[in-house]
């Protein structure tokens, strides 16, 4: 039925590791008698130079088109022997390893006769498999140049700059009107108390000015399609209603009637976390980039009141206001995508006992950060939002929304990692500015795990920050203050702390990106963050080849870790993009078009979005740049049309039959 093959069997002694247990001579004689075997030989060390040369010589001289090396595990030298076989002119995928060391001489070393019999079976199985193998070629696929980075926070900015410096064309897509992300809000960074803006701003400028970075702000990726080696993203640019002619004079914002004292429409500033108002035409913050004003059409009187107001247009000296702008969709072709969509702060309102939104003087840490900013809504004064009086006693509450009970729909089970140090930082900053202020941190466990964190924490105690182990049962108003009831777990006493301001260390939540992840076919972990390919060893990759993840999109982390991961993601993306061509693993799925009946089962079980039915030919097509070769599809295919090369049914069955105790019954 099949053509005659010329198979060579090479048995390695492994310097005694194999031959002290397995009777190599017997296995050799057995192998020599197998169908299609034209050579069976043994050698002291097959992996030595001499052994490799012998392999190559025999391939050339005997014209072998199949080789079995019986030696150690294929994980050790399969690649080496295949490479040597290729050099000698044989297709490397016709070489298989019989693992007679790890599977015979080692585990059965006290049973040499059985080990020898098993070695014969293993060799026979590989000979039979090799007889069923055919040559495979390593194809290459072109990879679209360019990378898209989604999210213009510190993770996206850092990854973009690195890739751009390496010469890659980067499209950086940010959905808000400015890059900078949440780091821009944090005022100072722990544990060094560096000014956040002073470290972030130069990076924002670098990204903004980089010749290899195409910055798209106020824009969102609304769809993604993948074809081999390429992602086509559809980016929707929202209309700013302000053209590039804007000179940044701020006259429009000054005159805009929205959010003025008596205006019927009041808009909370997103940038200031709702602690102040903003106009309908605005720049999010002074060092926003690009320095382009934006009209918020949802609140602007021109759009909401039938063109009633055109004040900004009238006062603009640059004639930069254009009410006719429309959303615009552009297609962006890239070879790789980095998801760096970051985080948002948990809304503590469902935790009614903490009184957030019920009492004005209960705020979150991000709001508190804005209060600490000398450019912020309170000009750096820590005051009670209710009446503007200085806050003399501040109580911070940890683990708000984090480390909740499993299954609690109102909180998250995970630890948000940064809140401990954020609270320590904010407490210190307040103590340094106003040593007479009383600052309490109510905690369950204080996690000062990073470099310099423990020292920072100890320093805060020296400054007089008071730590109470226990979380409050209730925050309620009394006598013009907020009374915080807490059981101090270390002393067993119940405390009632009269606070001017209660600051909640709210959890980090993933930004809402479900649609984006769905269109990229990237999964989430149950906590809502992007699922990495492997949590331990591939934390920057996703299961979709070419899609990487950086920063808090993957899970809560501080700025240091975000930068490190963004760098790693950039490196992974750069390696993937390589020189624009990737060598494809040939051991992946392939489809027999004559058998495929377009039922889509393969598509349903594929975890890598690697196989789709072509609507024109009604045949499943494997994207070999995406397929990992797991073979799930082969099992569910009702017609046997799809199979993984080297693991096709006849090939696996040949090995099973050869190992089986009973002879094949014709």
């Amino acid at each position, binding site marked *: 039925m099949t053509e005659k093959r010329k198979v060579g069997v090479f048995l390695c002694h492994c310097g005694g590791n194999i031959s002290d247990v397995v009777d190599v001579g017997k296995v050799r004689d057995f192998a020599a008698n197998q169908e299609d075997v034209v050579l069976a030989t043994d050698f002291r060390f097959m992996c030595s130079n001499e052994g490799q040369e012998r392999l190559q010589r025999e391939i050339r001289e005997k014209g072998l088109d199949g080789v079995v090396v019986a030696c150690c595990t294929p*994980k050790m030298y399969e690649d080496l022997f295949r490479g040597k076989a290729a050099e000698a002119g044989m297709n490397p995928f016709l070489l298989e390893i019989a693992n007679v060391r790890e599977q*015979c001489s080692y585990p059965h070393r006290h049973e040499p006769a059985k080990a020898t019999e098993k070695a014969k079976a*293993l060799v026979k199985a590989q000979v039979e498999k090799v007889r069923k193998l055919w040559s495979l070629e390593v194809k290459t696929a072109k990879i679209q140049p360019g990378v898209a980075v989604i999210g213009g926070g510190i993770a996206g900015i850092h990854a973009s700059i690195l890739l751009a410096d390496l010469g890659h064309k980067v499209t950086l897509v940010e959905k808000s009107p400015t890059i900078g992300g949440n780091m821009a809000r944090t005022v100072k960074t722990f544990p060094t108390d560096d000014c956040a803006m002073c470290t972030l701003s130069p990076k924002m400028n670098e990204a903004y000015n980089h010749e290899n970075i195409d910055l798209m702000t106020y824009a969102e990726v609304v769809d993604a399609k993948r074809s081999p080696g390429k992602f086509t993203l559809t980016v929707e640019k929202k209309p700013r209603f302000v053209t590039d002619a804007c000179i940044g004079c701020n006259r429009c914002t000054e005159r805009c009637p929205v959010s003025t004292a008596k205006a019927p429409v009041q808009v909370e500033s997103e940038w200031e976390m709702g602690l102040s108002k903003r106009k309908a035409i605005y720049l999010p913050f002074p060092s926003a980039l690009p320095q382009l004003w934006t009209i918020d059409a949802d609140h602007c009187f021109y759009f909401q009141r039938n063109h009633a107001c055109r004040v900004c247009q009238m006062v603009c000296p640059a004639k930069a206001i254009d009410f006719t702008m429309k959303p615009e969709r552009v297609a962006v072709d890239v070879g790789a995508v980095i998801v760096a969509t970051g985080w948002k702060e948990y809304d503590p309102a469902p935790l009614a006992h903490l009184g957030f939104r019920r009492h004005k003087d209960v705020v979150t840490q991000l709001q508190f950060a804005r209060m600490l900013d000398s450019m912020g809504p309170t000009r750096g004064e820590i005051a009670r939002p209710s009446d503007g009086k200085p806050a003399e006693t501040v109580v911070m509450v940890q683990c708000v929304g984090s480390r909740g009970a499993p299954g609690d729909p109102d909180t998250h089970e995970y630890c948000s990692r940064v809140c401990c140090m954020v609270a320590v930082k904010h407490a210190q900053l307040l103590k340094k500015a106003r040593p007479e202020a009383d600052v309490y941190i109510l905690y369950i466990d204080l996690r000062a795990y990073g470099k310099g964190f423990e020292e920072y924490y100890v320093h805060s105690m020296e400054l007089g920050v008071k730590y109470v182990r226990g979380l409050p049962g209730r925050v309620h108003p009394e006598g013009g203050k907020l009374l915080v009831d807490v059981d101090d777990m270390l002393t067993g006493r119940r405390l009632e702390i009269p606070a001017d301001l209660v600051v909640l260390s709210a959890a980090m939540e993933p930004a809402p990106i479900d649609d984006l992840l769905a269109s990229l076919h990237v999964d989430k972990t149950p906590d809502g963050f992007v699922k990495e390919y492997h949590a331990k060893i591939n934390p920057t990759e996703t299961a979709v080849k070419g899609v990487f993840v950086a920063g808090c999109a993957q899970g809560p982390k501080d700025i240091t870790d975000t930068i490190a991961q963004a760098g790693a993601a950039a490196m992974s993306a750069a390696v993937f993009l390589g020189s624009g061509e990737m060598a494809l693993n040939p051991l992946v799925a392939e489809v027999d078009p004559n058998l495929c009946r377009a039922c889509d089962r393969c598509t349903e079980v594929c975890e890598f979005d690697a196989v789709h039915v072509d609507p024109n030919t009604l045949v499943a097509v494997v994207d070999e740049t995406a397929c990992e070769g*797991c073979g799930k599809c082969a099992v569910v295919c009702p017609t046997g049309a799809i199979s993984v090369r080297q693991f096709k049914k006849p090939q696996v069955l040949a090995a099973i039959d050869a190992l089986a105790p009973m002879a094949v019954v014709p």
Partner: protein
Amino acid sequence: MTWEPQIAAFCCNWCGYAAADQAGAAKMEYPAGVKIVRLMCTGMMDPYYVLRAFERGFDGVLVVGCHVGSCHYKSGNLQAKEQLDRVDRVVRALGLGGRLAMTAASAAEGNVFADAARDFTEKVRKLGPNPLRQAVPA
């Protein structure tokens, strides 16, 4: 020659096979009747392989994949479990109940592989030789 249970052990490349390598490298002993067939993933474990192994006289079939959540290909081990649960009904109907098992061993768990190989062999030993061995004239 006395009968020794013959076990076909289908191992995924990343966990089961690597665990067997580790068991060997650590010189852990297990019965020589355990013969490994290497698959890239248990997800490519066709239920037919189970039936074929029994037809060819194996006394037991053991499938060793990654732990749930650790599959190199995300969910191959889950699909394998599903497929094997289905074929196990056929296996039991054929009077071969108890001779098919699936377990998980990470690449670092040579001991888990060796224990599974040993325990399963003993379990199959109690069941006796595969009755299909006599049913087909050799």
